[in-house]
């Protein structure tokens, strides 16, 4: 799905992205360059995500938010001008977002994410949902993983916050590892021997695969089961707190009691 139509990175991009190409490599940068991402929610969290994705150099970013800029949002986020009160948040954030990196196609959409049909989401390589309802997130998560679209959800509550990601049941990736220098079997290798070594900065790419669970599965863990109880103490309190903001299925108190028992 990620377009690799333009395999050549321009000199301008090479100059601007130099410091990050040196970190994650040219291939990764090309993939970013070919990706279209959806970002729902342009509150404080959304603004940060927008900034980071735009600076990274994705192909396109769609800002989706039906809410209006309020006095609070002026304080919370830095993309909507202080004079934009009453305007749609996505549209108000567009100009500054675009200015962060003219090489990215930034769009603003003032619809509500809840009203969007399934095929709307299918045009993206990755979807980021901030400040969305549980039902919507579960729905989008299910839909996207069927189509190999990466899903990221998150929200903040004062000093607390969470992030969830679902990269699919079979997410393939590579990990960069330093090349292992085999010890020399040469008997001539005395203490002074400074043989021409294998370059210590050389690395090799190792292929790996990871499997992610769906959001539904993550939220519906049966904490009374043996396995779950074992991991209970290590699960952050925050997980249970946010259950309380989502659902009445199992009360927060019950879950916390389970954890502390």
């Amino acid at each position, binding site marked *: 799905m990620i377009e690799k139509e333009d395999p050549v990175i321009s000199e301008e991009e090479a100059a601007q992205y130099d410091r990050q190409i040196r970190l994650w490599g040219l291939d990764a940068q090309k993939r970013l360059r070919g990706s279209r991402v959806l970002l729902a929610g342009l509150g404080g969290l959304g603004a940060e995500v927008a900034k980071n994705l735009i600076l*990274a150099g994705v192909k396109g970013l769609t800002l989706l938010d039906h809410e209006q800029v309020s006095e609070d949002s002026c304080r919370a986020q830095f993309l909507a001008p202080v004079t934009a009160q009453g305007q749609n948040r996505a549209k108000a954030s567009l100009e500054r977002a675009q200015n962060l990196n003219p090489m990215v196609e930034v769009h603003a959409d003032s619809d509500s994410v809840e009203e969007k049909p399934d095929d709307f989401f299918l045009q993206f390589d990755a979807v980021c949902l901030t400040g969305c309802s549980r039902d919507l997130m579960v729905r989008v998560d299910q839909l996207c993983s069927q189509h190999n679209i990466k899903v990221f959800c998150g929200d903040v509550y004062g000093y607390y916050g969470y992030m969830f990601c679902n990269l699919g049941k079979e997410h393939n990736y590579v990990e960069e590892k330093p090349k292992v220098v085999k010890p020399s079997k040469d008997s001539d290798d005395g203490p002074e021997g400074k043989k021409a070594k294998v370059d210590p900065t050389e690395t090799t790419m190792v292929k790996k695969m990871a499997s992610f669970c769906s959001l539904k599965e993550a939220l519906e863990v049966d904490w009374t089961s043996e396995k779950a109880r074992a991991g209970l103490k290590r699960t952050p309190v925050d997980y249970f707190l946010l259950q309380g903001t989502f659902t009445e299925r199992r009360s927060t108190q019950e879950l916390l009691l389970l954890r502390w028992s």
Partner: protein
Amino acid sequence: MGAIRKGGELVDSLSSSKVLVVGAGGIGCELLKNLVLTGFKNIEVIDLDTIDVSNLNRQFLFQKKHVGKSKAQVAKESALQFCPSANIVAYHDSIMNPDYNVEFFRKFMLVMNALDNRAARNHVNRMCLAADIPLIESGTAGYLGQVTVIKKGMTECYECQPKPAQKTFPGCTIRNTPSEPIHCIVWAKYLFNQLFGEEDADQEVSPDTADPEAAWNPEETATRATASEKDGDIKRISTKEWARSTGYDPVKLFNKLFKDDIMYLLTMDKLWKKRKAPTPLDWQQLENSETAGSGLKDQQVLGLWGYCELFQHSVETLRSQLQEKGEGAELVWDKDDPPAMDFVTAAANLRMHIFSMKMKSRFDVKSMAGNIIPAIATTNAVIAGLIVLEGLKILSGELESCRTIFLNKCPNLRKKLLVPCVLDPPSANCYVCASKPEVTVKVNVHKTMVLSLQDRILKERFGMVAPDVQIEDGKGTILISSEEGETEDNNSKFLSDFGIRNGSRLQADDFLQDYTLLINILHTEELERDVEFEVVGEAPDKAPPPQTNQEEVNSITNGNKDSAQPSTSSKAPEEDDDIMIVDSDEEEGVSSSSAAAVSSTTKRKHSDAETGETSTKRPRMEQSSAAASPNDDDDDDIIALD
């Protein structure tokens, strides 16, 4: 998470407190944004640098149209957009300028560093100690980052723990027996200076006849050593003079450096008994062979002839540059100056080929030669967030809840990416924050000049900016005065000329930093080759890791070594992004790019010459009083790492 109430009191404190942000780069931009949005109303920001296009991937307060302008100034303007009512003062200046004295620092409730070099960090550390203002220190490199809090009397200061010295290589490795690409790159940078820049006796490129490894018996080494000292290391005229005499003819230069000198090395046969011998190159033979390469120009590895041509072209360009500048001109190496970078790329690769190493692309050479630290927006964003959280604790009067926090690349065994550690109390032997700091330094008093004491020891090693030194000889003889010109005549004299000998004590002051250091002199004739001094006298458990002082010597300099004195112009010193890394059990270790990083000390034209140093944090953690048991469910999640 500690219970921090953002009640009315804290909010008031935010709007009235004055805070200082030192640096407006990667961390600085994110930090300014955070401070403004959090409600800080009085912010001062200082940065001596100007904006470069390579900053734009993360320093989001800057746009393409701002390239070349002052970082502090543009950062202020952009931040004001989010909150026009904030009061931001910007200084396009170096924090080491004496205008920013203890009184200046006392204006602030809090100082936050967003720096990328050790010299400035040392300096701000001392200023905050002198003014007794809390300091939040931080650093990032790639995916890694950390934040810590420094408060006089309560925590360790920035210099309590010895930091590993910048990695250096012995002269003979650079000149005779390189075994890694970095050795060849360092050699190429030395060559640049010898030909086009400021010649430096510590940056010799010709074969080292006094190499102890080359001698078949010990007497031979001694003879060679004295011979070379007398004859100036087989060359009787300087490299620059010789080059000038040939009119900087690229082919002649090529044949001397890559053929004749290599053939000379081959005659030192003992060196090649256990090593693969180098193979000299011949210009005529190589002419017009393959050049190769595809893809991003910078990332191509050319063929051998490609580098020959690159060598030729860059020499010709640099020659013209030199001519344009006129008589007695010198060029300063700059990784962002294309012919300078081309020259090092070509020369290093030719040498790598000679010594049977795989050649490297310009992109890779630039990383190593320019000490570039890879950087992204998100790491800085996380760290800047943590800085503000620590800042809020401080303003709430909750210093005990402050922590050192590490940001790792991979989650640890407890699935944590962010790892907090309790802050350590000050080190009793710290040569900066102890009540009467004292050190012992081993030198050869007959061979160490006063200038070396000032520049290498006091400024470079002990972080002073403007030292004043007097001898504790009962007469208070003044050895060095920070007033320009006053003690200039002393510079080339030796310490022994002033009666300094074994057991002498010197009092060194930096009045700006409000810092006095007592130095005990230990005379020795037995320093290692190329080592000028050794610092002794730190408590055993705080002894620096073995690789620092002893073997490695030649600091990898880059022409102008004046980095201890950053100017207020847009030229900025070479940076070294200082970060300590936790080795989590799951991590493979430091990424290769930061491991290869090497420091340089020089002025540079544009921003972003970043270097890195990393050290494993483990030893320090073991000392820390992180007392919580592994199963502790304490809010703060303190983990005792073993």
